[in-house]
């Protein structure tokens, strides 16, 4: 941009000029469009999520319909991806599992995003003793073996859900599926509760460093209102790292869900998730390798796309710290 050499120093006019330049997001979009891997990832993710969400409506077999006459059959015209150990249609289970896995990814990420951003902003803004205390707490939780706690929590939650279910059945005669619903909610909570730490650190660091930067000082000396500084200059600059880190949290969360389901602690059958399908597939990979291959492939492809999208977004939104 041309250096401002006007003698009549008009702040408003200068600001307007600055506003008319390409915005951060437009810039980012232009950079992002050039990144073929990132665009490809977006397409892959769209296809996978749309098929998972709408696909099951067009299928003949439901994900929980068992058929013991056709157990662990290879892919055929009738069952495109074969059947599992109880004769359930694998395609239907994979799509339903995709819904669950993606939902866990989104909801648990939203939980961690909310906690992390709020926590980080408060610590960064207020500063001082509160900041020191809040970050010390994060440090301590970081040092704890948190996957171990999530595992313990899930084991306990399973029994608690079953206990409530039995109690309802015995005392009121109500047949419910509290256990599996409860399990799902707890899964969101437990994963979200451990994944917010890094987000809080990132946001706090950003807020802290931004407050000391020259352009914020410039805003202050130009006499901009506090609101304008925060919304026009601070937030857009923190938003980049938040968006990038959120995209990278989703695969981490999905990985944790799959990990728990693989250990038999996450989603419970007859429901399905990709992690659960991979577990079931690996149990019978000798007789029916397709039961392992397809969910494994799909899960890896999703992680792959999410990671590439995250990298692409980072390069686009934060050109200073590109992937090198």
């Amino acid at each position, binding site marked *: 941009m041309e250096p401002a050499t006007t003698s009549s120093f008009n702040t408003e006019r200068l600001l307007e000029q600055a506003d008319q330049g390409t915005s951060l997001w437009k810039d980012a979009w232009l950079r992002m469009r050039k990144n073929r891997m990132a665009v490809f990832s977006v397409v892959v993710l769209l296809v996978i999520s749309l098929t998972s969400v709408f696909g099951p409506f067009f299928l003949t077999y439901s994900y929980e319909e068992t058929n013991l006459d056709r157990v662990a059959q290879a892919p055929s015209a009738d069952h495109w991806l074969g059947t599992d150990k109880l004769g359930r249609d694998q395609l239907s289970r994979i799509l339903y599992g995709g819904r669950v896995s993606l939902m866990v990814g989104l909801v648990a990420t939203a939980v961690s995003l909310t906690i992390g951003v709020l926590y980080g902003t408060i610590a960064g803004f207020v500063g001082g003793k509160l900041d020191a205390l809040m970050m010390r707490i994060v440090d*301590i939780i970081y*040092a*704890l*073996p*948190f*996957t*171990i*706690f999530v*595992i*313990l*929590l899930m*084991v*306990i939650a399973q*029994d*608690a859900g079953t*206990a409530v279910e039995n109690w309802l059945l015995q005392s009121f005669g109500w047949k419910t599926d509290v256990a599996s619903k409860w399990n799902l909610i707890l899964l969101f909570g437990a994963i979200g509760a451990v994944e917010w730490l890094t987000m809080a650190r990132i946001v706090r660091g950003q807020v802290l460093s931004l407050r000391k930067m020259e352009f914020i000082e410039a805003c202050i000396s130009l006499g901009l209102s506090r609101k304008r500084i925060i919304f026009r200059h601070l937030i857009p600059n923190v938003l980049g790292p938040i968006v990038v880190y959120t995209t990278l949290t989703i*695969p981490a969360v999905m*990985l944790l869900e*799959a*990990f728990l389901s*693989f*250990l038999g602690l996450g989603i419970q059958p007859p429901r399905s998730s990709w*992690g659960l399908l*991979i*577990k079931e*597939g*690996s149990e019978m*990979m*000798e007789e029916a*390798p397709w039961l*392992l291959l397809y969910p*494994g492939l799909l*899960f*890896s*492809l999703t*992680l*792959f796309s999410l*990671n*590439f999208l995250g990298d692409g977004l980072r390069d686009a939104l934060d050109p200073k710290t590109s*992937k*090198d």
Partner: protein
Amino acid sequence: MLKFILRRLLETIPVLLVVVTVTFFMLRLAPGGPFDSERKGSAEQEAQLNAYYGLDKPLMVQYFNYVGNLLKGDLGPTFTYANRDTNEIIGMFLPVSLELGIYSLLVALIIGITLGVIASLKPNSWSDYFPSSLAMVGICLPTFVLGPLLILFFSLKLNWFDATGWEYPRDRVLPSLTLGGYYAAYVARLTRGGMLEILTQDFIRTAKAKGASASRVLFKHALRGGLLPVVSFLGPATAGLISGSFVIETVFGIPGLGKQFVTSAFNRDYGLVMGTVLVFATFIILLNMIVDILQVWLNPKLKFK
């Protein structure tokens, strides 16, 4: 530095106490007990067992008893194994997990650093794209996908290895590759990033200008700074290796502590759960401490504070 280590060691005590307390109350306040499996004994037998193990006492009394015994180095009884206590069981299974962990860490560091350095020497060329894509694939293939796939290919199809077991040296190959491979991918990315940053710096140019050979520049000057990100990743990596071992030991049928932890959590084997959690927590905390020391040692800009 000695003061720093001492202070950090002292700091681990409250953290471990938090771990013990949280785990203890989480386990005890949860529904279900160690003796209510399907094969239920009579109420009388259960009461007897509870009295024998002191589980009928008030919770706070049990807690202080546990912490008291812990200070004497006694991890208490386990309900799964007859006539053995938790110390013995952990002593039996820990070496297996430790061996797996060390091999995996070696795999991660050797493969990861090599790939990362190769990728960083000629950025945006084929010798960069290939290792970088390999690393990306590694990150997106979780251990519980890679492990079964490796068994499927190398054990069932090619018959090179046994599918499960931990008896012969060759049984170590697939599990270590699976567990280490995932972290090798991370290490490769971190090494590449760190090296690229270092290689453009002035002191590297100075070293080259003074006529140092390429290998001397690389090994003597660049690696020390370029590996900093890898060193700080070692802490989270250890935590990851431990939780990864739960899966690996299940997939490959390895009699290690990770598998014990998951089973004992299901069975409400209080002693064994607490014992394994404590061992894991100690490892993670100690490794984080070593990482902090290494970081200062490698990076003269930092000081022990």
